[in-house]
């Protein structure tokens, strides 16, 4: 607990090395001393590395910092997002390089039978051999293998629910022995679910028509001719 007055706090992405205990981590096979408790991303910066490919939102949503890591003496190589994982002593890690998965090109609104079209667009999708490596590779804990099968069997609704957490890091693709890119299959199935198999909201259409028909014009005329003072009074009365 600190009782000394402090100056306005200066923020830096570099952790202070003075107070922090140091740990040894291996980045791309080379050992570095970094402060305990920092994220893998900050460990990269601390080690003096420029990060271009590999940093994005820094908040766990964009999937740019997909990373392979292994903890001390554990043979299992795991996956994480480098912005959302802390270093520990003896850890080894490397960013995943951009993986050249093939994305199918389609015009969703023109598809006649999206569930059948899946097999044209992604003919590898039904070739899943159930190894489950994709599920184990997912840092978002999505049951990826199950999702691929749901897509193949046409249950696009289930796919869209299961993959709502998907940050498109693409770590499911390099491990697939059938060359499926499950995240891309899931985007296709989810969008098709939205375009072809989801009810059109009647209320929204009604609201668009009302605006087009000028039904709010009277309200606009009333509001927009108010003086600043009257307008302030009007907004102040809003509950």
């Amino acid at each position, binding site marked *: 607990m600190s009782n*000394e007055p402090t100056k306005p706090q200066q923020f830096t992405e570099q952790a202070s090395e003075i107070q922090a205990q140091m740990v040894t981590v291996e980045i791309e096979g080379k050992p570095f001393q970094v402060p305990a408790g920092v994220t893998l991303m900050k460990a990269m910066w601390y080690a003096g590395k420029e990060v271009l490919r590999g940093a994005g*939102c820094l908040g766990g*949503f964009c999937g740019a910092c997909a990373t392979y890591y292994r903890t001390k003496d554990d043979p299992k190589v795991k996956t994480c997002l480098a912005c959302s994982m802390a270093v520990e002593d003896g850890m080894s890690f490397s960013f995943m390089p951009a993986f050249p998965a093939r994305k199918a090109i389609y015009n969703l609104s023109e598809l006649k039978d999206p569930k059948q079209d899946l097999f044209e667009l992604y003919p590898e999708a039904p070739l899943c051999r159930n190894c489950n490596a994709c599920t184990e590779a997912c840092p978002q804990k999505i049951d990826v293998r199950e999702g691929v099968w749901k897509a193949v069997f046409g249950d696009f609704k289930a796919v869209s629910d299961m993959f709502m957490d998907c940050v498109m890091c693409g770590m499911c693709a390099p491990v697939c022995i059938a060359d499926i890119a499950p995240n891309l299959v899931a985007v296709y199935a989810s969008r098709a679910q939205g375009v072809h198999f989801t009810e059109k909201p009647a209320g929204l259409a009604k609201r668009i028509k009302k605006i087009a028909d000028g039904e709010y014009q009277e309200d606009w005329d009333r509001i927009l001719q108010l003086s600043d003072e009257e307008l302030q009074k009007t907004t102040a009365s809003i509950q």
Partner: protein
Amino acid sequence: MDITAQQNLVHQTRDARRAIDFPKLSPAERDALIKKYHPDHRGHAYRPIKFGPNAGDSTVTEVATLLEGESPISADFNLTPEYSVDVLVVGGGGAGCAAALHAHAEGANVLLATKLRLGDSNSVMAQGGMQIAVGPDDSPVQHFLDTLKGGHMKNDHDLLKVMVEEGPSIGQWLLELGVLFDRQADGNLHVKKGGGSSKARLLTCSDYTGLEIMRVLKDEVLNQKVPLLEFGAVVELLSDGKGTCTGAVLQDLDNKRYVVVAAKTVILATGGIGRLHIQGFPTSNHYGATGDALVLAYRMGVPLVQIDTFQYHPSGGVYPEQLVGALVTEGIRSEGGHLVNAKGDRFVNELDTRDVVSSSIIKECEEGRGVRTAAGRVGVWLDTPLLDVAHGPGTLDKHFPAMVRQYERYQVDIRKDPVLIYPTLHYQNGGVKIDVKGETPAPNLFVAGEASGGLHGRNRLMGNSLLDLMVFGKRAGQTAAERAKTLSQGTLTLDHVAEFRAEAKRHHVSSGLSSPMVLPAYTRQV
């Protein structure tokens, strides 16, 4: 002292704190506190801009210095274009993707350049939702009034009217692209109530609204085969020497090579300024939020509006280290969670307004009653276990499952232990001046999204940013594409940069700082 030992004080003082009713501040106390501690009111952090279209206007030093910075492009630079396009869109977030898709749909020859990957942006992180007046008891007019109130009456009425009126058709466009907004049982869009809004108006895709929209927009940009230059940062604009924008110089960050683009129209959609860490604040923003459009438009002589006001969210994470600057939900305070300083005392009524709460947290830390982490950061406690004590076990699990998981990933159990918070830099309220088509006073230069200013007044309402991106991205994209049909490509000069340099010299400005920043300098010099 380690964090666990400090947390014990929060547990020990909980019962005593619960017995005290902490009053809200009187208007005079409140004004005094804000004036002294709110970042927007800290005179020493501000200074007048020395020259250019906003000469004499005050903004934070970090922004002023960047605006007055030196172009990386020298006067004798070879301007032979590598690309020649109708519309150059810079920025791969929500506004940039919307602009590119709409311009492409109008038949324009588009290039989308972005300094990271397509989609790496703040848009992808938007959790709260998107405000669109779709409810039967709601209207665009009501949306207008709520936003105006939230913006302290300083919003540009024309921009705001356009946004609220076009909201529903934007919702329709996103549905047609396959965005899966949450629904009611009857198939209508489910709406949630957001802070500062009188009606339930937030369209959501669970807690992943921005992610879902960006997944779809990115996929569509790829399907439409819009030409892309990823890791391509804009570093200067080009003009015809008479104030009209005619293209830009990009830098390919993979090989540092400069790339000249002749463009009939340019749309800057480069987002906000969180990564400038103005006044030393942590930020909830993405890696590339360095205010590049502000700098480039300013050099072209385009004024900025409300560039002195920023949104600081009271509760950004401080510990664990992985959550520094990340948003922690306001809901904990709404349900009675206390803010506690290092002495175990409360210091503010937690339900006071955001500016009051942020100011009081800063005050505690600056006066030495903050809690210091091993990594050297300072914050105050948010007493989360109090919710389970006050409302019964399971309250946190039931009402805040996302926050429980957010901390569980780092072995912090918010049901058992309080968390440390400090205000985080969240949003640039102002920005580049635009008209209702997204065009700046410099002809053929458009700006869309957070980089633009005027729409949100002095405080943006929750859920209005995602709508802003889609509405003004669309307008800029369509207008630029339409304009390009009748334009011939203008000459490429750096005359405005030369004028800007001369102006800097006249005002004896020579910081030597090159701007735009493009990416923050986080790499330690070893």
